[in-house]
């Protein structure tokens, strides 16, 4: 793995990325390696196609949504910082994160709020800050087997929205979303150990 040691220099702005994402040097190197492995034609960025090549994503009901999340605002490519930024949401929350929290600094990407926000925006396709019943239904349709009929799905979507909807606007805002999940251990559920 001789090439590996030379990576550090290859990553542009390694330091600022580390500061932003909180990744360790080793993780960053590894992710960069992964990034280059995914980048098939050595373009220096990833396209949707690159990510779609990951076989396991094709059988992940939310796979394509997650791929989309790497390409904010309809952009066609994601560079390494962007790639890492998305992954940084899944860094486990460590003690030092909470301790060294600097009020001036923006919340770390892996905060509970940001983790939830990442999930939220997977639902909120039209980016209006609300999960409408319609958007809920779409996600449900992705995640539920074909055995369930359309009416059932609609029924479930209705109830899900109703359950979380507090202000009665028929949609789930981010606040409501957070609230409906307040009992859940999001920090743990949305963290990957390897992404330290």
């Amino acid at each position, binding site marked *: 793995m001789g090439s590996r040691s030379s990576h550090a220099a290859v990553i542009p702005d390694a330091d600022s990325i580390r500061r932003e994402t909180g990744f360790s040097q080793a993780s960053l190197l590894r992710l960069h390696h992964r990034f280059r492995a995914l980048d098939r034609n050595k373009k220096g960025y990833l396209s949707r196609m690159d990510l779609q090549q990951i076989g396991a994503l094709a059988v992940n009901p939310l796979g394509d949504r997650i791929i989309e999340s790497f390409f904010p605002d309809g952009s066609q490519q994601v560079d390494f910082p962007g790639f890492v930024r998305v992954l940084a949401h899944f860094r486990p929350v460590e003690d030092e994160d909470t301790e060294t929290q600097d009020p001036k600094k923006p919340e770390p990407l892996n905060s509970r709020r940001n983790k939830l926000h990442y999930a939220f925006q997977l639902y909120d396709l039209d980016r209006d800050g609300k999960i409408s019943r319609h958007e809920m239904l779409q996600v449900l349709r992705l995640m539920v087997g074909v055995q369930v009929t*359309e009416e059932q799905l609609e029924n479930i979507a209705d109830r899900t929205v109703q*359950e979380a909807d507090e202000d009665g606007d028929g949609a789930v805002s981010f606040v409501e979303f957070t609230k409906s999940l307040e009992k859940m251990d999001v920090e743990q559920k949305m963290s990957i150990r390897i992404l330290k």
Partner: protein
Amino acid sequence: MWGLGSRGPGRGLLLALALGGLARAGGVEVEPGDAHGESGGFQVVTFKWAHVQDPYVIALWILVASVAKIGFHLSHKVTSVVPESALLIVLGLVLGGIVWAADHIASFTLTPTVFFFYLLPPIVLDAGYFMPNRLFFGNLGTILLYAVVGTVWNAATTGLSLYGVFLSGLMGDLKIGLLDFLLFGSLIAAVDPVAVLAVFEEVHVNEVLFIIVFGESLLNDAVTVVLYNVFESFVALGGDNVTGVDCVKGIVSFFVVSLGGTLVGVVFAFLLSLVTRFTKHVRIIEPGFVFVISYLSYLTSEMLSLSAILAITFCGICCQKYVKANISEQSATTVRYTMKMLASGAETIIFMFLGISAVNPFIWTWNTAFVLLTLVFISVYRAIGVVLQTWLLNRYRMVQLEPIDQVVLSYGGLRGAVAFALVVLLDGEKVKEKNLFVSTTIIVVFFTVIFQGLTIKPLVQWLKVKRSEHREPRLNEKLHGRAFDHILSAIEDISGQIGHNYLRDKWSHFDRKFLSRVLMRRSAQKSRDRILNVFHELNLKDAISYVAEGERRGSLAFIRSPSTDNMVNVDFTPRSSTVEASVSYLLRENVSAVCLDMQSLEQRRRSIRDAEDMVTHHTLQQYLYKPRQEYKHLYSRHELTPTEDEKQDREIFHRTMRKRLESFKSTKLGLNQNKKAAKMYKRERAQKRRNSSIPNGKLPMENPVQNFTIKEKDLELSDTEEHPNYDEEMSGGIEFLASVTKDTASDSPAGDTGSDTPLTGRSSPRHGPPAAAAAAPEKPLIPARLQRPRAPSPVPPAPAPAPAQNPESAAAEPAEPQEREPGAGPTPGAGAGPGPGPERRGLPSAHARSAAARRVHSRRSFQRPRARRRPALLKLASLPPSCHAPPHALEQEETPL
């Protein structure tokens, strides 16, 4: 065979066990000159017990064990608390007790020969063949450390400590030396794969932890074998005669045994893969090769006194990819089930006979200090060893092993039948205290399997305690929680999960370049080729999308019936849907009952609400896709539900690919922005289309783009909601859709009876010839495609009534009954509405059909659109020729992804 060395009454006795009184008579009759009858003349019926004795006894024992398993699983409560292995041991003890009480001879024991030659190989082969390779190799370093260093550590410390205590005189007077202790230490040190699997399968620990314990138990065999052999020969030599050279030889032999065993396994795996490459014409014996060649690898390495377990493990690990690609789907299923059956059966028998073997006073020699100290030492040193090694490992590991993991690792060090078989193998002449060793080993095995097996599950649960509150998660939590699981697994895939990417890339490169070429069928290779693969996927997707389209338009029964054979929730029931039905049912109940008590009314209202919730929760629980980790990556000997998983995978895969395909197409039309991404494919497909459009040129479309548009819309009909951006472009289709839906809606209130009319009305005008259909711009294309499926009945396909001039009106038009075949309801072409339309479920005719007929019908209809598809769709011509394989083949090839 089951310790059949002992002769005589024991056999009759066994029969007594299983067959009751008859056996006694048999036993008596057998003794005198038996079968051939002394009376001279020809005997019509002779009783030849001795003739069939051995196989008969074996079969009976297997039967007993299997029936016992059925018995255990009658009570779900028991099996969820007590591991099956523990139950089997207890059962064995009971059976052994019965045999003993009747006979006073231990006739049936687990003999090393039977264990090593017949019971162990299937279990280990199964483990290897179904090994989650990526996980295994990702953690290979850790596994090897635990397996090699850990086992040596355990053996040495246990042996030496026992010796130390022995010197202190605590154990009293034993004819035993240092080497004997070390020998005992070496055989008791190894974590046993059979026991570990049996217990860990029921304890759901995380995959990394599982693979470490599991891998360790498999790979430590080499160490055990070497240590055992070395010390046994040392003991035989006598302590004074052991020289340094012998020690060096011992160390060398470790490498020879382990690497040699692995090599043998790899060589046989190569052979096996190569053989299966050429079995195309002898499909029926394909599965046989898998078993025979793997078994040969085991025997060969046993013959060469290498590690047989390593050999067969690696044979399984290495061949799985190629064998699975080479053999036919049916053969693969056969292999899967046979392997699971053999392994599971062997495991059952092993544990039962462990129990039976213990009932034999002749082997019992009790020495409290020795037994107890052994138990203490193996547990303590295991824990110490794990902590030390983990400390070392965590400096290099990406996935740290947390303290909790270490506890499970230490506590999961179960000993089992391997130790028992090894100890029984000892030569009583040389090892004076063999019986003490045997009884201690039995105690250790029973203790670890029963006590630790029982407690490890609560322990694991207790260690992960987070919230004590037990409440049904709310809908949101359930849904989002599942979504998080999916997100997490996707992110893991994107971020490359387990390290070793570099090596893996290199390996897969090598594999693609050389190995696969030699070992895989050409067709299988092709299906693995990357670019082609994508086209395959797209093509498959394409096919499915149309089928799915039909399903959406027609009824969901179409998809439901073939994929899930359960008729529980299928739309043939006269209710509209489970949720709605039950709710409305409840409501009706309430309305009918006169109730003046306000409180109870209130309660009832709440209960309706609860019931609704319950139903919803239930639906979600049942049908939410499982996150990948929950069903993959974990080896399980007993549960074989890949069909379920594959079904889910396939379902999701189809959806994903359909959407991707759509986005490709819309790219083509300039509807979507991600042009760049699809560029390559676009070009390639365009090329292909140019090449192959001529043969299919009979189609009336000159303009492929327009063709695309049509289909795009058709596709969108089903799916508009998922692609809000397309709404404008697809407005035509949607309008149509809306109109049809309205029709459906207006029809449905009429109830179950009125439903036939709109159904047929919608479908019959579609029977236009494809050309006519294609000419009509909007949706007749699909109807044309789908119309065929309904022709299977004896009813001759009516010569297309007026080729759909105006689909809208046609859809609204009432029935043309002569064309309706009974039970047309669930066929794909039935309706155009996006929703399955409750009315379809109400079809009385559909109801009347038998389940079998339904299935046949739906299967038929499932295939029909495909057959039709090729001539009808120009797009298919644009795909590479290899994609033109029958859809069935495509479906098979999709799996490698």
